[in-house]
């Protein structure tokens, strides 16, 4: 089973994308992806409740294909985030939480730790668009949370320092690395697995921003075993969410 752990739905004028759930499912079908773990862009940077509700309705329409992140804007960490997490779990069965460095302010602030703790209490993975340094702080403070570092450091925000991300994951067993990135450095996945194993590497595409086939090929074309590819493509996420495979 292939699970894409990094998917955006909605419209972003800033990032020049627009994708409905149906658009995303077509992309998934074209690329052999079984399930999409989705964050709503409106929820992430505009209106948390409106966006999460929109995604929740899509989950109800496609319960076998769509997994939902409760998206929490940074400014809302101490402004209704905990209630929103509980609401989205109970109303829509959302399985994860997305936190995002927008605007360009630190995710690590006192108000983030209760969000991580609530995620841990629900056994929800957190997809964090963040730096290795921030992830280290969060993983240190709330080691019981499953923290997934979006892009594994391959962002402008994290200065493209994916090796620093690997170091962070080596030091913190609860930190996982998610693969979506424009950067497709040959040998990076092999190096990552040599340091932390395949069990903490999670496949993502960042669709509809990045070319899905490239993100698939980054894993399928790497010089790693098929068993490790299977873990990365979906086995790890299925285990974390206790999904039937």
């Amino acid at each position, binding site marked *: 089973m292939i699970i894409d752990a990094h998917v955006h739905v909605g419209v972003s004028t800033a990032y020049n994308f627009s994708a409905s759930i149906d658009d995303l499912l077509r992309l998934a079908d074209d690329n052999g992806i079984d399930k999409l773990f989705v964050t709503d862009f409106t929820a992430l940077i505009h209106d948390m409740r409106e966006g999460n509700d929109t995604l929740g309705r899509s989950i109800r329409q496609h319960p076998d294909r769509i997994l939902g992140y409760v998206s929490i804007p940074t400014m809302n960490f101490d402004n209704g985030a905990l209630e929103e997490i509980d609401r989205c779990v109970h109303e829509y069965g959302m399985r994860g939480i997305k936190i995002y460095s927008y605007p360009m302010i630190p995710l690590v602030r006192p108000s983030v730790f209760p969000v991580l703790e609530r995620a841990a209490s629900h056994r929800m993975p957190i997809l964090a668009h963040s730096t290795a340094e921030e992830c280290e702080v969060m993983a240190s403070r709330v080691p019981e949370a499953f923290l997934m570092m979006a892009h594994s450091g391959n962002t402008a925000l994290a*200065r493209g320092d994916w090796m620093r991300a690997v170091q962070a994951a080596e030091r913190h067993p609860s930190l996982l690395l998610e693969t979506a990135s424009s950067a497709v450095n040959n040998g990076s996945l092999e190096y990552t697995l040599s340091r932390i194993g395949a069990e903490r590497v999670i496949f993502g595409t960042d669709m509809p921003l990045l070319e899905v*086939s490239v993100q698939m090929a980054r894993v399928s074309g790497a010089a790693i075993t098929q068993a490790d590819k299977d873990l990365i493509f979906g086995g790890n996420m299925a285990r974390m969410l206790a999904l039937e495979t």
Partner: protein
Amino acid sequence: MTVWDFSGFVGAWGYWPLKERTGADVMALMDAHGIERAVVGSTRALESDWRLGNSDILAAAAESGGRLVPFVTIDNTQSGTSELLAEYAAAGAKGIRCYPSHHHNTLPLQLEPLCAAAQDHGLIVTLVMRAIMDWSFPVAAVEPFEGLIAQFSGVQFVIHGLNYGQEAWHGIRLLNTYPNVWLETSCLQGLGGIARWVAHADVSRILLGTGVPLQYPACGIAKLEKAEISAADKEAIAHRNAQRLLAYST
């Protein structure tokens, strides 16, 4: 699909552990991914010593049975460019790679002697906006180079390393404005990027690049294979355009 890669490299790599260092290593990786031929530049010329790097790349190409097509790099502050390029062309170089953001933050006017010499010697000039798509690497803007492209209409310019957004649109505009501009795809990572380029630009001047061995070659090939364009356009991008462009080179 026959694949020619326009954005290969040969040499040691200082930024992360990389197994493929020699020409033979790179060709083995090319074999694993069905890449028949690759235009290659020296990582040493990119990172440190351009003279030694050029020696490396010419030697690797000479031992490759024609599979590695060497492009050299010249320090743009160097005098005697024309004589140097004549030597390199005689030794088998087919073109030049310029790295404006890596080398002195090069201004277009500093490349004028190089372009004049390239024109004289029938060499292709690659303007590398990004060596690879890596967020820790410097990026050059393509717009300032328009005057250079217009000035040297007898030079074929390959713009290397554009990704999505405005930089892609600037590249497409240059390709559509100047018949001596070509774009390569190694850093184009946006969803449907190749199809978008084909929809807006002359497909006959789009070149496949994977960035082998610095980037996973499977990624560069997959985005062409999955692109929603015609089979003929895929063939053109995969190798036919590169064959035609390299025929310009003496």
